[in-house]
């Protein structure tokens, strides 16, 4: 079951658990828009420690503006970064 739809506004959790994590530090706490659903995959954060990686996690491509990421960004307001984030790192914002 898909937890998010294309176009949903999402916030990447501002969470800092120890260990192997697949969400880069610089995007934590940032907001973006779901660009596409990429499928479900075994959880690499569990596979990294020898577990079987289940339940599978849904992976979403999230589009974030560069100005959201970098306060001192000097390029266009329409410049964006796409990156793929697992569902357990995302929360939906605003209806």
């Amino acid at each position, binding site marked *: 079951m898909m937890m998010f739809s294309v176009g949903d506004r999402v916030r990447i959790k501002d969470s*800092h*658990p*120890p*260990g*192997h994590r697949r969400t*880069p*530090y*610089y*995007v934590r706490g940032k907001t973006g828009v779901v660009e596409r659903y990429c499928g479900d995959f075994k959880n*690499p*954060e569990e*596979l*990294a*420690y*020898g577990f079987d990686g289940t339940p599978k996690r849904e992976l979403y491509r999230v589009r974030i503006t560069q100005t959201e*990421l*970098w306060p001192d960004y000097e390029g266009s307001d329409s410049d964006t970064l796409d990156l793929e984030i697992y569902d357990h790192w995302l929360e939906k914002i605003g209806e």
Partner: protein
Amino acid sequence: MSQRQHDMGGMQAGPIESDEHAAEPWAKMITSLAAAMRDHDIMRIDELRRALEDLPEDVYSKDYFERWSEAMVNLLEEKGLLTREEVMGKMDALKAQLEG
């Protein structure tokens, strides 16, 4: 928890060295060993990444493939397959054999 050593997005990284350099034979060997460990279900790529990220800073700052070899030895020890002493002992024996 603060930004970890491998998670460099947004950090000041300094100049990028763009010179081409040939891969050393030992570095190719490490790549092959990593592939063999994966093929034999001894190591997953996610485990290698985790072991690389967990290396102490003075080891993490070494050459890319030295880093890989250190992480792979740590995983072999963690899984109880080989000890670091056994790996180093075998390397010394091979070195002696090649030099002899």
